[in-house]
């Protein structure tokens, strides 16, 4: 068996997914509950798309206990 030519997917992809998870956890409360909101919208067939990206998730200072 050769050494695989690019780093194993596990090292790359899982890390990348972790990065995205981490980005989501930056906005832990808002992010996670936002998904609940989306589920609601989808289950009701409501919002078709994002109307304006006005929330700056990058700068949210989320307290885990909120």
């Amino acid at each position, binding site marked *: 068996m050769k050494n695989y030519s690019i780093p*194993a997917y596990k090292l790359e992809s899982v890390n990348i997914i972790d990065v995205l998870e981490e980005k*989501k956890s930056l906005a832990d409360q808002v992010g996670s509950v936002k998904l609940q909101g989306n589920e*609601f919208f989808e289950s009701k067939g409501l919002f078709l798309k994002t109307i304006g990206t006005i929330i700056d998730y990058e700068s949210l200072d989320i307290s885990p206990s*909120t």
Partner: protein
Amino acid sequence: MNHLISPHLHKVILLHVSCKLIFGNQYSIICDLANNEFIRLPVQLTKDLFLNNHTYNSLIESELYDTIYLYDLFEKLIGKNYLNFYDDTLLSDFDINLLEPYSIVNCIIEFNIELIKYYPKVIRQLNKLQCRDIQLRFYSQVKLSQLISFLKLFNSSSIMNIDIILPYSHNVIDDISNHLTIINRVTRVIVFASDRNDVVQVKQISVMFVIQEIKNNKHCGFIHPNYFNSSFRNYTENINYNSCLNRKISIDYHGMIKNCPSLSNSFGNIKTTQLDDVLKNCHFTALWFINKDKIRICKDCEFRYICTDCRAYLSEPLDILSKPLKCGYDPYRGIWKDWKSLVECLDAINYYEL
């Protein structure tokens, strides 16, 4: 050997029809349009897996990847229902053209009490255009009675969803609970300048409290994974059209009709101009057709068909085809950074006085 894999070692590995590959410069994503999910993998790995009609056995024999890693990956992809094994490579595909009846899908209105007598006419016009979703922005305190009166204008309209953005006040949650929940069209309220970041569900309304100040339309255009949407509708729209501006119309604080309140170009004022006349203006609709494949840097990004866009705040302000300023993702390295900290963004930040 996984019982899902072992019977199919000699069959061709194909993604489900509802799972689409999007290739970026370094990474690719498999987009599950049916479940609004995606997974991200290096470009070369994705090509090896899905573009060469490999079977599981032929992949193992190719010795490109370690067996254990391949096994783990397949287990994950099968578990997520992303792929299956087929006897041949002929799978039907779906039409990526987005067909919807709405002339306008959504509208942003920046509320100004001085324009209140013109709003009924605007809403009648939006109704005529079959507008479906609306975002009402209140940058300063609004009396509850004024808000309720305004919302009543949407009764019997085509508007199905109303998104409200307003500043925090001590009785805001009571106002929402007691008054806004009665209006079924109101589905989300963003309360800015709050004392905390939090989300609560009050009947049909998702109420988002954010500490962030939203004083004017400069507070828009953020690109962030939380805005990603890999639904079938979003994907088919984003392939063909601009993911923010397609079939959007906006009324800014001064009553000017625009593609987006943050853009400087306007196409008349609601006092004198009909919305459907604006739609006939090719300069207005031109922005609808700037999809991500036409935008520099974005066209090399694996997220381009699930991402949002912004043509108001650009990394190169005089170049309408430059990357959104408020995006910190580098598709050539596959990493996110805070866009405000990037040296290459400083000139544009100063230009827009952000």
